[in-house]
């Protein structure tokens, strides 16, 4: 049995106005996220122009295939999220449940690949700090530090996303979403796609620096 639909809050004249307000608020939040990540991109560009050779060398320590595979996985998770959103717009809860689960699985695959990469960096003594690869070119440690900070902040966003996904899966199981009422799905989708966009830029900047 589905939960009774919540009535439209008084502040809105109609559902369309409510939907636009939802999107507007979410984009205001995403603008702060753009600048949050933007500071790291700024630091990246400054240090890459200061130490171009060390950054190229640092990029070569990363596995090209891991980065490329992870990009495809994340783009796939965006597709499943967008499909889920399209399904609930038709009021179809079971396909939505399937899409949310697929998105969560793809997000977890991404994080697992990322974890194996961190593990390899550790084994190669490429963790910034005291035990860092002795005799490394100046600037290499900066590249690695930026690599861990940027991908770490990105991975943290994905962990938050996976946590929210568990909540959405439970809500959907209880029949809380309908064709008319599914704002959490739509707003979560915006967040998930945004995190995907950040990775779209991290991929060439970290993995594809030309020698």
């Amino acid at each position, binding site marked *: 049995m589905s939960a009774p639909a919540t009535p439209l809050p008084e502040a809105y004249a109609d559902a369309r106005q409510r939907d636009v307000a939802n999107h507007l608020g979410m984009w205001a939040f995403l603008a702060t996220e753009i600048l949050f990540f933007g500071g790291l991109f700024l630091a990246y560009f400054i240090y890459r122009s200061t130490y171009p050779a060390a950054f190229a060398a640092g990029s070569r320590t990363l596995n090209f295939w891991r980065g490329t595979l992870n990009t495809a996985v994340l*783009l796939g998770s965006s597709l499943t999220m967008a*499909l889920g959103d399209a399904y609930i717009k038709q009021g179809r809860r079971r396909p939505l449940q399937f899409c949310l689960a697929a998105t969560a699985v793809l997000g977890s695959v991404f994080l697992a690949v990322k974890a194996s990469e961190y593990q390899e960096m550790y084994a190669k003594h490429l963790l910034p700090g005291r035990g860092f690869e002795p005799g490394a070119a100046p600037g290499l440690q900066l590249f690695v530090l930026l690599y861990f900070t940027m991908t770490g902040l990105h991975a943290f966003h994905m962990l938050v996303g996976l946590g929210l996904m568990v909540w959405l899966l439970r809500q959907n199981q209880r029949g809380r979403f309908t064709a008319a009422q599914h704002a959490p799905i739509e707003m979560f989708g915006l967040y998930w796609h945004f995190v995907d966009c950040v990775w779209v830029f991290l991929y*060439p900047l970290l993995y594809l620096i030309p020698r």
Partner: protein
Amino acid sequence: MPESAATFRRLFGTFGALIALLVITAAASALPSGWWSTPLSLLIATAKAALIFTIFMRLSGQPALVRIFAVVGLFWLAIMLTLTAADYFTRFWPG
């Protein structure tokens, strides 16, 4: 429902385009590199992000106000990058 069939086609088409762009970036990185390598990969990344913004994040169906909010974050980012770059690339000139 022909309209919804069109929606699903559009989503799959967007995904196909994103993967095609990924293949182009990955393949281009195997070519002999030059000054254009990084600008090219960033250009492709921007194209991917534009697809995600307009289709997956459904900016194309939103009123102008929402679209302005989406662009404003990027605009502020551009200000931050440009002014900082202007400082870094002129500060250490000899003479």
